[in-house]
């Protein structure tokens, strides 16, 4: 299966290599660098490459390439999925130590076949688990809310949610979680500990949890269920036919936030190439304009319904360049605590199989996934 793994940083340096079978020279990565060169953007490197003697399967995460070498037929998704798990694990556990990463990799694969990929299990191998008698279940509904046309209609909106659990219970507790409105869920995928049959028959999540933090379930709420969009955007961006300048005016206001505050509000705009600089004033928060990437970021923070944040000012264009054809889209990022915009609610969480009384809690959170306002 997986023969070797190379970790390569953004600059193209191999900073870690691990072999599960015989050692493969790192020169095999040259084929990858060639492809990377060709692709220009790191995101565009083909995940599967063929070289005369090996196959290279790679992922790009957090400015790192995880490049695996395989020699025989193997489902590519198998490798990709595994590499993402590696990326997750390294992220969760390691900040500073290559040796630990190396040791971890040793534990994760045996002869190229995954042995232990649960970060909980791996943690156990590194240090003994802490025993805390508490359960914290976090329900996060992060929405991939939609796009608006100039008229204000929603082009497309959907919600992708995830239930993350943090379990610290001794023994073999058998938990079951039910929802007030499971019919909302359009499509779900589960952590392996969840019993499929119980879900099919009674729409309840029944499971014996692993220790620690893990993703219990991913769900999808389709666009058929009306997705409410929490904020509205009034924007006016225009470039003048005469003279190398343009104007920008953006106001954001709350729409349906169910009485909760919108936090971590941020607007990102990819400006046309011709825009040289921006001279703007924000009533709230800060803005930055990156000249190299042509990205305008307006970090607003909390949304105050009494005093709506506004960003306005002028844009200067490269002289002589043709006027940009289309206005750029606005990408909006936001968070709302204590509410899941999908409306999904946990009804109850019960524990069987152990005698003690657990501490239970649930936290809801809405996050904008990919919220684009078209202009």
């Amino acid at each position, binding site marked *: 299966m997986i023969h070797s793994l190379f970790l390569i940083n953004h600059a193209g340096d191999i*900073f870690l290599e691990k072999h599960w079978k015989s050692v493969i020279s790192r020169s095999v990565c040259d084929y990858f660098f060639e492809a990377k060169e060709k692709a220009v953007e790191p995101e565009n490197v083909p995940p599967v490459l063929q070289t005369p003697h090996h196959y290279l399967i790679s992922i790009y995460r957090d400015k790192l390439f995880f490049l695996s070498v395989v020699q025989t037929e193997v489902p590519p998704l198998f490798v990709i999925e595994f590499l993402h798990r590696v990326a997750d694990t390294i992220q969760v556990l390691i900040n500073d130590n290559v040796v630990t990463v190396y040791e971890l990799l040793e534990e994760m694969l045996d002869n190229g076949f995954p042995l232990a990929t649960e970060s909980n299990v791996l943690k156990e191998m590194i240090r003994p688990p802490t025993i805390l008698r508490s359960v914290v279940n976090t329900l996060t509904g992060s929405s991939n809310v939609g796009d608006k046309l100039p008229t204000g209609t929603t082009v497309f909106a959907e919600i992708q949610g995830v239930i993350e659990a943090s379990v610290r219970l001794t023994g073999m507790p058998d938990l079951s979680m039910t929802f007030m409105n499971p019919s909302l869920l359009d499509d779900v995928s589960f952590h392996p500990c969840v019993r499929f049959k119980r879900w099919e028959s009674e729409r309840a999540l029944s499971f014996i949890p692993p220790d620690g933090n893990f993703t219990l379930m991913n769900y999808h709420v389709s666009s058929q269920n009306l997705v409410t969009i929490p904020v509205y955007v009034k924007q006016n961006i225009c470039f003048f036919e005469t003279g190398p300048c343009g104007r920008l005016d953006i106001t954001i206001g709350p729409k349906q936030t169910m009485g909760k505050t919108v936090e971590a509000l941020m607007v990102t705009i990819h400006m046309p190439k011709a825009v040289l600089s921006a001279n703007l004033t924000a009533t709230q928060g800060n803005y930055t304009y990156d000249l190299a990437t042509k990205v305008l970021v307006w970090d607003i923070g909390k949304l105050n319904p009494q005093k709506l944040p506004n960003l306005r000012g002028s844009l200067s264009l490269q002289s002589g360049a043709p006027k940009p054809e289309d206005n750029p889209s606005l990408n909006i990022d936001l968070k709302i605590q204590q509410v899941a915009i999908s409306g999904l609610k946990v009804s109850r969480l019960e524990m069987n199989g152990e005698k003690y009384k657990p501490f239970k809690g649930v936290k809801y959170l809405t996050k904008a996934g990919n919220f684009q306002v078209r202009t």
Partner: protein
Amino acid sequence: MSTIALYNDQGGAEAAVEAGRRTPPVPAELPLDSSALTLKNLKEMLESNKESLKLEAMKRVVGLISKGKNASELFPAVVKNVASKNIELKKLVYVYLVRYAEEQQDLALLSISTFQRALKDPNQFIRGSALRVLSSIRVPIIVPIMMLAIKEAAADLSPYVRKTSAHAIQKLYSLDPDQKEQLIEVIEKLLKDKSTLVAGSVVMSFEEVCPDRIDLIHKNYRKLCNLLVDVEEWGQVVIISMLTRYARTQFTSPWKEGATFDENHDKAFYDSDSEEKKDQTEAKPYIMDPDHRLLLRNTKPLLQSRNTAVVMCVAQLYWHLAPTQEVNIVTKSLVRLLRSHREVQYIVLQNIATMSIQRKLEILTNLANEANISTILREFQTYVKSQDKAFAAATIQAIGRCATNITDVTDTCLSGLVLLLSNRDETVVAESVVVIKKLLQTQPTQHSEIIKHMAKLFDNITVSMARASILWLMGEYCDRVPKIAPDVLRKMAKTFTAEEDIVKLQTVNLAAKLYLTNSKQTKLLTQYILNLGKYDQSYDIRDRTRFIRQLIVPNEKSGALNKYARRILLAPKPAPVLESSFKDRDRFQLGTLSHSLNTKAAGYQELSDWPAVAPDQSVRNVEVIEPSGSESEEESSEESEKTSSDSGKSSSGSEKSSSESESEPKKKKKTKKAPQKKSKPPAAFSDSDENGNGPVAQASSSSAESSSGSETDSEDSDPPATPQKKKKDVKSKPKAEVKSKVEVSLLDLVDFSPAPTNAPKSSVFSSSLLSDLEGLSLSNISSTIQVTTPSFGPVKTYELLHHMTGKGLSAKYHFPRQPCLYEPSMVAVQVILTNSSDHSLEEIHIGERSPAGLNIHCFNTIERLEPEASVTVSMGIDFSDSTQAANFQLCTKEDQFSVSIQPAVGELLMPSSMTEQDYSKEQGKLLGMNETSATITMATANTSRLAISKQVLSVCNVGEVPSSQNSVHRFAGRTVSSGALVLVCLELKESSTALLTINTEKSVMASMLLRDLKQPLVQA
């Protein structure tokens, strides 16, 4: 330790040095700027007495390894620490060993004894990791030790250790492929394991070592299906891929024409099995094998897995195995995958693309149908506005594909594209024109408006491809736009000289077409253009002009061709097919690397076509007694190599109890109390009950019982080296010749290892053990160990009893070519009994037999056989290596029918596997009288290796021996009853002659076999 940022590390050496600077214990006088000295320094640290210093040093050493730096010179210093009590240090040393053992083989051997001791550790994780490291040390000399360790671990109490042994099988196989046969035995044993932890890994080994031994799967098929949901995710992927392949060889196609599919199956998804069975008994043109359904049913929930590889794997399984109507259930899950990481999307889209092309867009139309096409189109409109023009162009092509694929929206797409014609960007317009051209060609009716619109835009379009396309469209549909076309031509005549070549060519075309349809208006214009073309700089255009002129302008020279000008130029053109580049990928199994690359990757296993007739279903039946019987048989043969001391015995007991304990770790203790239960497989698997208790099964279960008292504790207290020595002694007996060489090295090693070897315990055998041993030696004589189950040739079925003579009872038989379960000297025969009468037959059994001493293992009496029903039973016959027919009576309650089974000589053999060297050695012993040979003329179709082995295997049940020469094909087998070696050798000579040689002491068999073999090889 150091806080060097992970992502910014660039040079390994500097990092190590820097780390060194920060650690206080480093001697101060050490120069820090050279990595060579750092190595020296590390060596000093490793040789110090302080644990902390050693640990620090090891961390840095591993740091060097992880950066790809060479740290091999520290090997002697590192390997000394292998026996360290500090777990953390030990782990790092393991990591180091695995990396460098191959380079420093002699030194690596120093560590072996430590691992051997660790293999006996009470902690399962230490046992597991010891085996992991031991098997990762790629040193050929320790192959025998690895083999022993694997066999022992395969019987370990802990499923974790058994899983590790499954991985070790693959490692050993890649180190020494000659161990294949022994490894297959271990695989066979592990396949029977009921632990979910083991299943995935052992199937992985199966796929790597012996993917063609599909016969090993039969008995485990249902168990694997049932375990699947609980197997860890990575194992699921491997198992599902394997089962996909398996199913394609065992079941008939559910896609057949007119196959009515029972919708109830889908609904019965979570219903009880009884309902399912009811469905099956109804007569249908196509009835899905219940095992086929089982697979589909048990994989479906996995579509909900969080692991994208699992979901994809189930999707491909449905794609390749499910009835067409059911494939759609994977859609939603695949769409979910598309929200995952970019790399996942890449792979999934490739697969969806293949799916959608092959089955007429069932899936794509699910994604893009009338309802959402407008959404998609609007989305596309945004993309078209994108600043990346190449992307915009690609989008337009996609719109074009949508338009052709979904007829209802063609008009919408077309008008959308026409709108794009007025786009400011040239590339967008050009691309639109090209796509419109293609679209109009597919649907040329009443689109004159669009053509007119395009004509109007013509002046503003400068991209030559687009201009050429418009001109072509004009010409093609000039009868629909009779007024505009000449005008366009007139404009073109004006600018002809300034145009690009491609436009000029189309202008000439247009002119010619107009001349033919509307010569009155355009005659002069055409002549003018042709004249311009005549003197053009490009020879292409001059050529074309000359050709067109000859074609359309009548003169004395141009003959018959002229008449056909109209037909030639205005022939209706076939519409182009707009399709993506994923067309021919369907030859690969979906989800595979080969599919992704669109080339065959190393180790790719072809997915076979559905068989026309399903192979015998009964092979998957797990008989009530069979698993325990064969297990114990195998166990006992295993024991022959392993035990004569208590330790072996206790491990046999522990292995049995493990099968239960792994599913419920808590119940470990209980299992001891109920040792008898274990021999029974769960009721779910027991579908038939044809077999009586084999004597072997009983014997061994009793031995297990008696030993169960001693359990695990005794294992731990045993001195580590003892069992190994024992094993060696016993093992060397049956295989002395083959093994002698390796044995020597093994001996050396044990002597070499500094570990204190305790003297073997006094060899007092308990009576049960002795009986075990007897059983063992018996199976060794019949050489079941070396006998492999054959590769599957075509199964010939013979008639045993015709239904006319049998008063409605008919019987057929075939030789399944599997080792007989009842007695090793018997040939297994499967008999299919069918009741063709209109009343049920009762008490079908075997009566008198002749010759009198004939040893037959009868099937159990069949109490009742309903009309039209049939049943497959298996029996064993000892033919004593002769082709003399076995005569017996097949009795029902009322009648008796004399029948006889006459075996072909080839069926009296069992395949035997050996290396080429062993083969020539054995052959050397069987010369002279024992050799029979003939020169034959081969049919040309038979000269490939594949064809030869197919033909030979169809005649006789032998195993192929790997051959280093291309022209020589060797096969080896043993006679079933006496175990005499039969060697078949076919040497290809010039001009399609070949020398066929058979070496065996059974000269009668040899001549018969020679005759039988000649026939298929000489024919076609």
